[in-house]
């Protein structure tokens, strides 16, 4: 399904992107000749150890930073134009809600900034809060919510303007394991509902495998794409069909193993004593 759309339209196209940071101790090559294409509606995870530049790459797509070399296009536009046109929604590791605004007020913020009329705004907010299951909490303040709920508000806010691309930088990184799995299931549902492409930065292999159509494995110093692992789960089944049961299936573990081995440079030794039959 997603592949057919992908032929027509790419969400993100990254060509030979370099990023060098100037620091006091000299230059740091954060990204080195990155090529990556994300199709419309595709869910792509970026995974790798700290310092591999996965967050940096996402920030370049979001136009929060500029590449030193190479080109990025988002729906055929420059990242800057895409940002000004509100082509993407974004969520960070911290929910980043404004503490003085209610849940509804936080979700309404982007709509408010872009001059959406009051009636349309509140209708959209109701719809979004319903989608993330927080309808009863519209009038609460962020400090009255748990970490998971705050993050759901942040996701609702990112979806407010029906972006075709969702950028997520470890959005569940600060959550406990149980909340995290629950949120992943919800994200699968939400991304299937909205049909948006997702670029998802994470540290967690099972998270990447569970969510993604493709997992981009990156290596540090300099940040490079080591391997792109397609998730057979995603090709076989529609995204909405990913349920909790998937986490216990054999195919899931095979994919986890595949990503893990890619992360460790394809060497099974690094992952410890283990059978190598699935290599």
């Amino acid at each position, binding site marked *: 399904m997603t592949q057919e759309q992908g032929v027509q339209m790419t969400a993100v196209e990254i060509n030979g992107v370099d990023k060098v940071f100037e620091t006091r101790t000299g230059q740091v090559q954060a990204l080195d000749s990155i090529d990556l294409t994300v199709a419309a509606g595709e869910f792509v995870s970026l995974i790798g150890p700290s310092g591999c530049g996965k967050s940096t790459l996402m920030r370049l797509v*979001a*136009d*929060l930073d500029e590449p030193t070399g190479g080109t990025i296009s988002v729906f055929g536009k420059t990242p800057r134009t895409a*940002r*000004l046109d*509100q082509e*993407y929604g*974004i969520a*960070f590791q*911290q*929910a*980043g*809600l*404004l*503490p*003085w605004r209610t849940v509804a007020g936080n979700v309404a*913020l*982007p709509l*408010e*900034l*872009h001059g959406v009329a009051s009636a349309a705004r509140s209708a959209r907010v109701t719809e979004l809060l319903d989608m993330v299951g927080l309808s009863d909490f519209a009038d*609460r*303040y*962020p*400090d*009255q*919510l*748990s*970490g*998971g*709920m*705050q993050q759901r508000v942040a996701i609702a806010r990112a979806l407010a303007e029906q972006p075709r691309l969702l950028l997520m930088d470890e959005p569940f990184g*600060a*959550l*406990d394991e*149980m*909340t995290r799995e*629950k949120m992943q299931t919800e994200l699968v549902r939400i991304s299937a509902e909205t049909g948006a492409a997702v670029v998802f930065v994470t540290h967690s292999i099972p998270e990447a495998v569970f969510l993604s159509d493709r997992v981009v494995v990156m290596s540090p110093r300099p940040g490079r794409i080591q391997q792109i692992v397609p998730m057979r789960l995603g090709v076989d089944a529609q995204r909405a069909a990913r349920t909790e049961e998937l986490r216990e299936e054999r195919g899931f573990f095979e994919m986890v193993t595949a990503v893990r081995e890619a992360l460790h440079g394809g060497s099974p030794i690094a992952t410890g004593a283990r059978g190598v039959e699935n290599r």
Partner: protein
Amino acid sequence: MTDTRRSSRPPGAVSRSREAAPEVSIRRSAPTRPANNSAPRRELARWGWGLAGILVVALLWEGYKAIGPADGVVLGETRVLPRTTDLAMPHIWEMLARLGEPVTRADDALPLWAVVALAALTTLGIAAAGWLVGVVVGIGFALIMQRWRLAEWGLLPWIVISQTVPLIAFAPVVKSWGSRVEIGAFEWQDWMSVALIASYLAFFPIAIGALKGLQSPDRIHEELMQTYAAGYWQTLVKLRMPAAVPYLLPALRLGAANAVIGAVVAEVSTGLQGGIGRILIQFAGQASGDPAKAWGPIFGSIVLGLVAAGSVALLGVMLKNYRRTEESA
């Protein structure tokens, strides 16, 4: 998009960006506040402690007066503790009783408390005008300094230095400048000099507090506004201004207290009639014959300061939602 500047915050700055503590469950019910039923009791306790503090001061006063030597405690040539005579230290009840007596022996004289209250109200009005000017100027400076880093480097040292100018020396100069101002029908009044001096003291903490507040939004919030393609003004109104409230409120309170002090001192040094500064001096001059009377304006100025600070506290209650933090309580 404008450049959103990162400000390096001083280490003591309140940060809302702490890692959100992981929580195990999704809370479905409202967080119950156990303090609900004990809140009135705590309120009562606060008043109780406040009263106790006043009582302690009164007891110290009367205690020292009772046991201290009449000539005070003198070490070498220096008197380290005051005389305890009725002239130097009237009994507290005498000071309070004096408030109810007529201010002079004239037949139509108002009671002392009424004279003090009227003078305090006059000063309060002048201080309020000065405070308002200070708020406008202070926030204006803060906005300029937040917008342009260069302005912060250029202005901030001068703002700090401005506060080292001795007020007493300054006040008559302002008055004489003011007396030359005449624009059309507008004529500079003496009280305006006093208000100006009050604003001079008031703007300082407000400028500093507002600057810190406007610079307080976390990077994540600034970047979020950037992803929304929000410009400078939108970011200011939707993010910086609300985020500045918790910093601004204490600054406004400090500014209010400064405005009162500035007004009183300026009244004294410019010799403005009608305010509490004037009667403070006038009644102190009469202290040899009527020692308790001099304390009336002193109490008056204390109440004045409390009223000024209290009014700002009221402002804080109205803006309480802007004082929330992101973490769950």
